[in-house]
């Protein structure tokens, strides 16, 4: 696939805990194409954040990437030196954190946290110090204005605690976008926001995406957001990808019983703004999983043939699902 910006193959990320090795991400394949928006959905704990923290190389002990290949523009990120990785982080791949309230440093002004991003990556800044500072201040104010924070110039001198939760979320997005990355990983960018601001933030991301040809990974619980903004969707369950495909197809006709369950719990017309409601039963513990379909205990369609490891099955039309019942749909 030549237009793939990011290609993840067989990613396995584990956490060594007292109770045993938690396999948070187990054999995940994912592809993000240039300019596309990939939605990532799944219940809490399904491994969405850990998958993309692995891509960023930001998994901390006791976690570690055990296997897999992460190709960005054809370069294997896992083989890069820390210095090379730092040059990619922020400039080529930017990320916003799930919890905006804790992601900004309480002891530094918003302006400084914005400026350091540009200082680190922006080569187009003027060389002389004064001009550089002015350019950064101007750009920072512009970025804050872009995410809908009024009187941005003054607010740059304020500390994070002087902003509301929603504003901090938008500041974080503004910082992530400040160096115009090729890929933005947005981990639940709208959870803390009310509906109007949610819409604004997503509009903004979509606009910039179009303008810069940026790709976006949108991690969310909100299927409505996926339906509206994502070209393709990837559904995760217990550390694995269980279904991928073009958004409209997956939402219109889900193939995996888990995806079906997710969609069934949401009234069709009220899709927008709906959060994923857990399906009956419990997500299995990610330690010492039996070699069988992970959804087995909760699956209404289960059978004896599901009691062995289940691979991804081709479901036709660029779709795949991890279920023995899935066969390529016969298209006329």
């Amino acid at each position, binding site marked *: 696939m030549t237009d793939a910006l990011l290609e993840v193959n067989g990613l396995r990320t584990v956490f060594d805990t007292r109770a045993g090795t938690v396999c948070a991400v187990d054999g995940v394949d994912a592809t993000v194409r240039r300019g596309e928006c990939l939605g990532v959905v799944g219940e809490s704990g399904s491994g969405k954040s850990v998958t993309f923290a692995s891509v*960023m190389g*930001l998994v*901390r002990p006791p976690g570690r990437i055990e296997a897999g290949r992460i190709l960005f523009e054809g370069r294997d990120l896992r083989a890069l030196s*820390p210095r090379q990785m*730092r*040059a*990619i*982080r*922020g*400039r080529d791949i*930017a*990320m916003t*954190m799930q*919890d905006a309230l*804790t*992601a*900004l*440093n*309480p*002891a*530094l002004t918003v302006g400084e946290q914005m400026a*350091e*991003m540009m200082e*680190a*990556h922006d080569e187009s800044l003027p060389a002389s110090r004064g001009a550089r500072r002015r350019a950064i201040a101007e750009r920072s104010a512009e970025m804050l204005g872009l995410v809908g924070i009024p009187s941005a110039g003054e607010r740059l001198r304020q*500390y994070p*605690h002087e902003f509301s939760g929603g504003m901090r979320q938008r500041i*974080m997005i503004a*910082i*992530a976008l400040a160096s115009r990355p090729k890929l933005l990983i947005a981990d639940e960018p709208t959870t803390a926001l009310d509906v109007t601001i949610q819409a604004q933030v997503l509009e903004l991301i979509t606009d910039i995406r179009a303008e810069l040809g940026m790709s976006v990974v949108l991690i969310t619980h909100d299927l409505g957001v996926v339906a509206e903004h994502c070209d393709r969707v990837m559904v995760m369950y217990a550390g694995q990808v269980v279904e991928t495909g073009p958004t409209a197809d997956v939402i219109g006709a889900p193939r995996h019983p888990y995806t079906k369950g997710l969609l069934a719990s949401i009234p069709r017309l009220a899709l927008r703004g709906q959060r994923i409601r857990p399906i009956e039963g419990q997500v299995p513990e990610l330690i010492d999983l039996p070699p069988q379909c992970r959804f087995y205990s909760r699956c209404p369609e289960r059978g004896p043939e599901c009691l062995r490891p289940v691979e991804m099955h081709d479901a036709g039309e660029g779709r795949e699902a991890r279920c023995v019942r899935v066969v390529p749909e016969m298209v006329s």
Partner: protein
Amino acid sequence: MSLARLVERLLQLIPVLLGVSVIVFVMITLTPGDPVDIMIGDEIVTEEQEEAMRRDLGLDRPVHERFLVFLGNAVQGDFGESFYHGRPVADVIAERLPATIELTLVAMIIALVTAIPLGVLAAIKRNSILDRIATVGSLLGVSLPGFWFGILLIMLFAVQLDLLPVSGRIGYAFEIEPITHFMLIDTLLRGRPDAFLDALSHIILPAITLGLPMTAILMRVTRASMLEVLRQDYVTFAEAKGLARHRILFRHALKNALIPTVSVAAIETGSLLGGNMIVETVFGWPGLGRLVVESIFVRNYPLVQAAVLLYAVTYVMLNFFADILYTVLNPRVKL
């Protein structure tokens, strides 16, 4: 911090200080031993002479009266006469104070410049050999008795290696006319680098001994808070921004990690005051701590009262200062 809050905090100090003065007064009055007896020693005096002495010192009056007199005078800065020196207590204390302040400051500087880098390093290189050594070292640092450690240093550096002097502030050969009364500064102001080095060689062992527990505590606080801060989301976000490692460590992490360190340092400075008495005695340091110890032995009540009160005021003020510092450093806390 608003002015009203500041005044409120200052007013809160009054009952504390009053309580301290009562305690000091009662304790010293209840301590066995009579100052007049001790002053007389082996000399032969008549009963009348002894009575007269008692009257002169105000010791013939009832306890509560003596306390009120003491308090009334203290408020005006008059702590009476030192029984022993026959001079105003305030003068005697003022004379000894600079040596103690100098020693305390040097001890503090030594503690800060060793504890912070060590704590940061131990946190960054968590579980490394260095971290383990630092942990064991800090455990020893808080648990070793000051006088024992001091004597150990004297044995090693002064007696065995003969590198540093055993006691005092400066060699007898040096005559330095005081300006600030801080020996290290005065020697420099007088253009006497040789005397400065001599003063430095005198202060180094007592300062290390005095600062050791503080170093140990500050190292542990720095290490713990650095580890805590490095786990925070904002550090991950800073890394996600692709910032240089030194910027993440020093600008993002250390700035937050130092907030508890600095507050604890301010409070711990108060505990240096207590350490002073032991260290000054061990090293023959001519400061307030040794004066107090001597005065306790001879039941020099007015001086001990004044000194302990001074310690209490300083201690309380340092805590107050630590609070203010915490607010200044931490933009989240608004008073």
